[in-house]
């Protein structure tokens, strides 16, 4: 068995007095599609934020491809090969759909500021490549028809898709999806899941997926981690998770509260 692609060891973070996440041990092997579930406020997004350098864990360590990424800035983490989507859509609203994707593609291009200012051949070559690649990404998500539209004018479901297209354009090895189907109807959700399966194959991706819709997570994930009150309470196959009393209790507890 080779080393996992990403590994969290005793990871924890504290905000003031609040321990939002503690003692989390997780690993994801290359090529896996892993789910991260848990009730509201369990610490799922916070875990993403630690994985992507938005927050630095106050405890433990995170390694990616065998090297620690703790303390790196978000853009450095992205360059290493982790990219993400946001639970609350964070597109570049006043820019075009195409520009949104091109921006994620930016760090993979090489032409310098000077070459752009002087419009040297390397500028045209680099920009041409970015344009072509970005349109390819848009095509996969059926967004190419909207390419000159401002991101804010897209229908909601398309905005969610653009978030993923953009994350993909950043050239990740590990893709983190934070509730990508939130607010979508069942048909849109199903289409999205098919797409995720497709890009996973096409781009040889490893995926960590946060999702509230249990049936959905159970349907496509090979392995699932369950967070509750900042701690991992279960790990296993969908079948194991479904029958885990702790998980049932965590979710039932939530339902009772609601």
């Amino acid at each position, binding site marked *: 068995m080779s080393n996992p692609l990403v590994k969290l060891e005793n990871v924890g973070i504290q905000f003031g007095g609040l321990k939002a996440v503690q003692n989390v041990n997780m690993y994801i092997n290359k090529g896996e599609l892993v789910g991260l579930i848990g009730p509201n406020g369990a610490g799922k997004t916070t875990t993403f934020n630690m994985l992507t350098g938005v927050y630095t864990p106050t405890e433990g360590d995170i390694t990616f491809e065998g090297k620690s990424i703790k303390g790196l800035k978000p*853009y450095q983490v992205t360059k290493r090969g982790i990219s993400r989507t946001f639970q609350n859509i964070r597109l570049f609203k006043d*820019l075009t759909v195409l520009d949104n994707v*091109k*921006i994620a593609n930016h*760090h993979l291009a090489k032409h310098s*500021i000077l070459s*752009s200012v002087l419009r040297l051949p390397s500028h045209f070559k680099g920009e041409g490549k970015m344009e072509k690649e970005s349109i390819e990404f848009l095509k996969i998500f059926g967004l190419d028809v909207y390419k000159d539209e401002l991101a804010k004018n897209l229908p909601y479901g398309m905005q969610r898709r653009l978030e993923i297209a953009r994350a993909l354009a950043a050239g990740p090895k590990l893709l983190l999806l934070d509730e990508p189907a939130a607010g979508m109807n069942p048909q849109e959700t199903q289409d999205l899941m098919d797409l995720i399966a497709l890009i996973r194959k096409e781009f040889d991706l490893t995926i960590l997926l946060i999702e509230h819709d249990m049936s959905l997570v159970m349907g496509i994930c090979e392995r699932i981690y369950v967070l509750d009150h900042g701690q991992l309470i279960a790990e296993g196959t969908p079948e194991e998770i479904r029958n885990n009393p702790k998980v049932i209790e965590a979710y039932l507890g939530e339902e009772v509260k609601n």
Partner: protein
Amino acid sequence: MKKSKAFWVYLALALVIYAVVQVMTANEMIDLYYQNMLITICINIMLAVSLHIVIGITGQFSIGHAGFMAVGAYVSAICTMKLGLPFIVGIIMAGVVAAIAGLLVGVPSLRLKGDYLAIATLGFAEIIRITFLNIDYVGGAAGMVVNHMTTWTYAFLGVLITILVISNFTNSRHGRSCLAIREDEIAADAMGINTTYYKVVAFVIGSLFAGVAGALYAHNFYIIQPTAFNFLKSFEILIYVVLGGLGSLSGSVIAAIFLTTVSQYLQAFPETRMIIYSVVLILVMLYRPTGLMGTKELKDVFRLKKRGGSEA
């Protein structure tokens, strides 16, 4: 290649304007007053566009732009008047030193956000002004005598190069990175953009051209004084950018032309000038809160018109 077509149209238009003014000047159809006004317009366009890259493109609210203009003005004046160097060397030195000043100010202050950045940049500009005020070598409050060297050709080339560099920068992966920062800094960071680096780059480019504008300004009158670079000057430049529409290069050019013309005619009535400025600003904020052009460029407006026409 639509973009390059628009580029050649603009370039041709610019050259025509240049030639017309040049011929009219040679035939004494434009007197000194108007020549001076045209040069002032050019200088103010350079100031507006160089601030536009910082505020309009990168979304960093810097309001001390006159500080970099002052650096350029004094550095170039020292080069030509004290060291006896040619004007062009003075201009280049003005750009280089202002860019370095931009780097030194930008690195610490661009970590600040919103109001704090505004205060820091305003503070910097005041420090620069007070420094020149207290250096006898450059004449202190009395100012420094500078020969008139700025010609229409210099001013025109200054504008042309400023606009060319800044629009080429904007329409590239580098400019898009700056736009991404303006739109959503956290998302930009998450997409692999070194946000600090690009904020500093935009700031340095803006400072560089403000410095060059300062050099042209210094050599357009016979004297430079620190008061010319006070916070009112910074606000004036800010108004061009805001009035033109944050994010629109053509907007800031149009606003600079318009307001410079208005204020030249009202020079004899400084109070009226401020009142008119205020009224214009209030009207724009009421009826067009995104500025004259919003984030659109001139060519977008024309394209929209054309499309609308063919559909009708």
